[in-house]
């Protein structure tokens, strides 16, 4: 009886997590204009076809891509040195500054969005490409900082210390340690930054009007204003992209592990 209760609780918990995901897929497969579950007769790929052929969505994709391409490398360039200092240096000042860096993640998005809206409006940057880049920076840089810090913390500082002992300046030793030892990590952090930038919506909704479309804003408008399943179709495509990235990542990782293991076995 006890076992049955535990299994039921687990089943309900998993169902709770899965139901909205299944709901999105079903909504996107409906051929009707109103959002709802499709019957067998109304099952179609109409919204996917519309998504692929729409010039508005193509414009939003290009715009989102450009924003992400600017935001992500800038975030990595700012966050990587900060992450290095936060693990290398001790003291109240450094821990206070580290907390400050992640503060945009702590502040509720609506508060951040309101502040950015008022701020960008004063600088005449409301509804401009640069304005959106500045807004996305707030969402992406702290995430990249956290990722890099956790990665750097897990690594040995042996190379850095050796370089310092051999006479390299702190900045040169640190730059070499970050770039040479963590090139892959920097690329991965940039990729995650791109994903976060693509996914950002609330800040974009607040700091733009019609000039700078982004994918999530377009999807939000589609669902909230037009109430059509087009936004859900976009979400399904987004998930397919995410799953592909995840699969590629896992297979690449397992390939490298196998390769290394083979090398170790052959070597000795």
């Amino acid at each position, binding site marked *: 009886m006890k076992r049955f209760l*535990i299994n039921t609780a*687990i089943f309900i*918990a998993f169902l*709770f*997590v*899965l139901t*909205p*995901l299944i*709901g*999105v897929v079903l909504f996107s497969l409906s051929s009707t204009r109103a*959002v*709802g579950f499709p019957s067998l007769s109304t099952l179609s790929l109409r919204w996917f076809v519309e998504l692929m052929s729409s010039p508005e969505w193509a414009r939003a994709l290009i715009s989102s891509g450009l924003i992400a391409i600017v935001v992500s490398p800038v975030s990595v360039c*700012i966050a990587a*040195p*900060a992450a*290095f*200092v*936060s693990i*290398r*240096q001790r003291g109240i*000042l*450094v821990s206070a*500054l*580290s*907390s*400050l*860096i*992640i*503060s*945009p993640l702590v*502040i*509720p998005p*609506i*508060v951040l969005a*309101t*502040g*950015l*809206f*008022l*701020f960008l409006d004063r600088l005449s940057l409301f509804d401009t490409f640069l304005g959106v880049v500045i807004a996305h*920076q707030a969402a992406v*840089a*702290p995430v990249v900082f956290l990722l890099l810090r956790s990665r750097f913390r897990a690594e040995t500082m042996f190379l850095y210390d050796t370089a310092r002992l051999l006479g390299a*300046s*702190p*900045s*040169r030793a*640190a730059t070499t340690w970050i770039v040479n030892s963590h090139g892959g990590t920097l690329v991965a952090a940039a990729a995650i930054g791109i994903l976060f930038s693509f*996914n*950002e919506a609330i800040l974009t909704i607040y700091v733009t009007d019609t000039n700078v479309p982004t994918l*999530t804003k377009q*999807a*939000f408008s589609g*669902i*909230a204003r037009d109430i059509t399943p087009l936004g*859900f179709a976009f*979400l399904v495509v987004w*998930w397919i992209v*995410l799953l592909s990235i*995840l699969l590629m990542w896992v297979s690449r990782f397992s390939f490298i592990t196998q390769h290394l293991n083979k090398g170790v076995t052959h070597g000795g």
Partner: protein
Amino acid sequence: MDGDGQVTSPRIPTILWIAPAAGLATCYALAPVLLALSTGFQNWEHPKPLGLTQVDLANLIWDSFWIPCLSSLLAIAITLPLNLISFFCVPFRKLWFTVLMLVLFTNPIFFVFVWAFLWPWTKGSVAVICAAGYILTPLAALVTESGLRSVPMTIVNLSRVSGASPANVCRDLLIPWIWPQFVVAWLLGFMSALGFFLVPLYVGGGRVRSATVWIDRSLNQLGDSEMAGYFILIITGLAVLGMLLAGGIHRILDSSTAEQRP
């Protein structure tokens, strides 16, 4: 060039490397507060009435508090059994983390609408708690998972070899080990849920009072930046307090349980 003919770069203290990121974050964090102060609060001695009665305001603050509290608890209640199973069962772990990644990298606004369309008859606090709890699931799962990763597998394996069932290992070893993570997950979830405004707006169907909805309403409908400023200060203050508490409690609990750990 130095004496040996080597090119030397100017010596910049590395601590300054943190300055650009910290400066940028300061601008982002302070911008809302400073702008709220500069646009709204020009008359500190006689502040403009908020247009809400004391009872309204008390209800608003109470609703803004208890709904995030329960949402965060729900997220932990959902993720705990699934995380514990994934600890023992590798195939389920892969499935669970794939689902989590999908939820994590999907903007919460989509789930807000999914909830609103899936259960259109459920409006009100319960629906808001369920929807917010769902959105907080990846956060709670990742924090709990970080605790589970710190459990030494030797002890788990020893317990299993000694005849303890997975349920016993969970009850007597894993849950006591990771309970500081529960507190941190709850606080982080609470702080995140404090900032949700599309959830009470769309899922709540206008019946749920929330400070964030009032920020949006006062800015976009009433054009009253002073009222928005008050709520911005309240929510920012609560969020910062939550962050400090999360850090402090985590340190205290971690150090106290570290002494008791085998």
